[in-house]
């Protein structure tokens, strides 16, 4: 009977096409908005994905005396903490010397590239800091033999922004009250782009080297990795409560906050989409009611010659399902098309997932059936005697 339903749908072509357009716009809108939401989510995941189960612990002692070894030892003894990575941060106040040009490149005075911070780490911790899978695209990573050497591993953006390549040197000045002493760190490698700004804009140097240069074993920060991403906030709180002179914070807290506000926005956006789909559904309902009204006599004849109530019900439901399914498919196409346009004309990348498509199509069929229920029921209840006598 599906062929009959299909035929009936296109009896009133213009009306059916307009109804389909209504539902297609609703579904298309939801898919487009959904794919934008999905794109935002993925962008977030990409940017903050590496943050994971890490807590940043900063020194908050009076006079910035640094984080003591006792604190590190204590944290390491906690069962929920997997590892503790000590870090020293050092601000550079002088310029770079480009190996290629042989001369010293001075900077300072307002440009965006005028500041750089050395992150001192133990070379053994770098895989953990950067990520095991992340490699250098030029040069090499640090290794334990670099302890004590003036070498630096650069993040992708640092290298780009400062125009630094492997072999170039960065000047680090140690200042005391009376003297200024310069040390030149040669770039040994540049890390491939990760999307994580913490890594991309970093400059990693061996912590031991810095301790020797500064003659000071100060640890200014810790990266604390916990065993489970779900306990990050709890452990962070525990550190703040139980360890003195440090401040623990997790990027995850912020990420979760952003995610939750993003979810609110998404909910609102889906709400708008849902309203437009409901309007489309009302269009289907209207069309089906009219179509049934016009065919009262026909339906009466079909019942008189032996169609059951269920057959009539099914046929009308099929008709509205066809309308909405076509609407759903057209909507899907519109959604994908608008996604392509967004990708082409903006820097933003929406993502269309199979789930999203399935939801769109499923929703359209569900809607069609829902909108068809009343017209189908009223058609199936027509009394053949009445309609054959008066129509």
């Amino acid at each position, binding site marked *: 009977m599906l062929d009959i339903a299909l035929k009936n749908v296109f009896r009133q072509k213009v009306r059916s096409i307009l109804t389909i357009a209504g539902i297609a716009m609703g579904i298309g809108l939801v898919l487009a908005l959904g794919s934008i939401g999905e794109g935002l989510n993925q962008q977030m995941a990409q940017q903050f994905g590496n943050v994971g189960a890490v807590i940043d612990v900063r020194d908050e002692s009076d006079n910035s005396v640094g984080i003591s070894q006792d604190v590190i030892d204590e944290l390491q003894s906690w069962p929920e903490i997997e590892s503790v990575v000590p870090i020293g941060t050092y601000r550079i106040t002088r310029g770079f010397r480009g190996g290629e040009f042989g001369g010293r490149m001075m900077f300072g005075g307002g440009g965006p590239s005028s500041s750089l911070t050395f992150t001192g780490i133990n070379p053994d911790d770098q895989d953990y800091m950067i990520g095991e899978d992340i490699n250098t695209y030029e040069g090499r990573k640090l290794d334990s033999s670099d302890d004590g050497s003036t070498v630096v591993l650069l993040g992708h953006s640092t290298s780009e922004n400062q125009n630094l390549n492997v072999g170039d040197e960065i000047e680090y000045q140690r200042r005391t009250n009376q003297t200024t002493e310069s040390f030149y760190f040669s770039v040994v490698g540049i890390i491939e782009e990760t999307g994580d700004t913490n890594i991309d804009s970093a400059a990693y140097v061996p912590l031991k080297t810095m301790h020797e240069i500064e003659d000071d074993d100060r640890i200014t920060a810790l990266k604390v990795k916990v065993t489970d991403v779900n306990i990050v906030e709890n452990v962070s709180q525990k550190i703040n409560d139980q360890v003195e002179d440090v401040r623990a914070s997790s990027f995850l807290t912020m990420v979760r906050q952003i995610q939750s506000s993003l979810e609110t926005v998404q909910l609102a956006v889906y709400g708008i989409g849902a309203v437009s789909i409901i309007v489309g559904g009302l269009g289907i309902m209207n069309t089906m009611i009219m179509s049934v009204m016009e065919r009262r006599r*026909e339906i009466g004849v079909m019942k008189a*010659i*032996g169609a059951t109530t269920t057959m009539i019900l099914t046929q009308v439901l099929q008709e509205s399902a066809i309308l909405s399914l076509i609407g759903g498919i057209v909507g899907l196409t519109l959604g994908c098309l608008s996604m392509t346009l967004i990708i082409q004309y903006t820097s933003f990348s929406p993502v269309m997932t199979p789930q999203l498509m399935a939801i769109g199509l499923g929703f359209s069929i569900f809607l069609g059936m829902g909108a068809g229920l009343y017209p189908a029921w009223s058609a199936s209840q027509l009394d053949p005697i009445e309609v054959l006598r008066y129509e």
Partner: protein
Amino acid sequence: MSNGEIHCEGLVKIYNQGQPNEFEALKGIEFTIGEGEFVSITGPSGSGKSTLLNLISCLDTPTKGEVYIEETAISTLNGFERAKLRREKLGFVFQQFNLIRNMTSFENIELPIRFKGASTGERKKRVTELLSLVGLEGKENNKPTELSGGEQQRVAIARSLANDPQIILGDEPTGNLDQKTGKTIIELLKKLNKEENKTLIVVTHDPGIAKSAQRTIKLQDGKII
């Protein structure tokens, strides 16, 4: 078990029962129409012809009494069983032809067979047979609007025979046709009655049809006279 027998027992039909506008359309009708009979039902407007036909067609239920079709009491059937009975045991021919406008002759004739759930091959075979029986070979792809009144009624007759029912019910089958065409339609129905032993019941105003029937049931004010 006899095929094509209809028996009506004490049929009473009251519309708007208990209301001020209560109207008794049938006041105790009793008759039996045997297998292969050609019976006409006549009477003036408002005599209860259509009401009687609706009851025999299982489209309506009597207030009192019972209709037996091939010994089945129709009051015992539910909606689904009545629909099944209508499509398998009864054939309908209407004054207005009542063909489905956007379907071809073939599709119209095929409809009751589809309701029954027959396969495409079976349907095609049966419709081809019926088209030739009513003399409409070559018109299978025409829609009702492309056919003359007589041709439309032939399609309707073919449709009524789709599931090979033993009983054919005609409601003024020639009422919308000119005399000559009407005559050919009656001839076709008579042929089915004679050659295929179909029970034929025709409600009509046309004295010509009434005359060619074996028996006439005359109604007046809801009673047989």
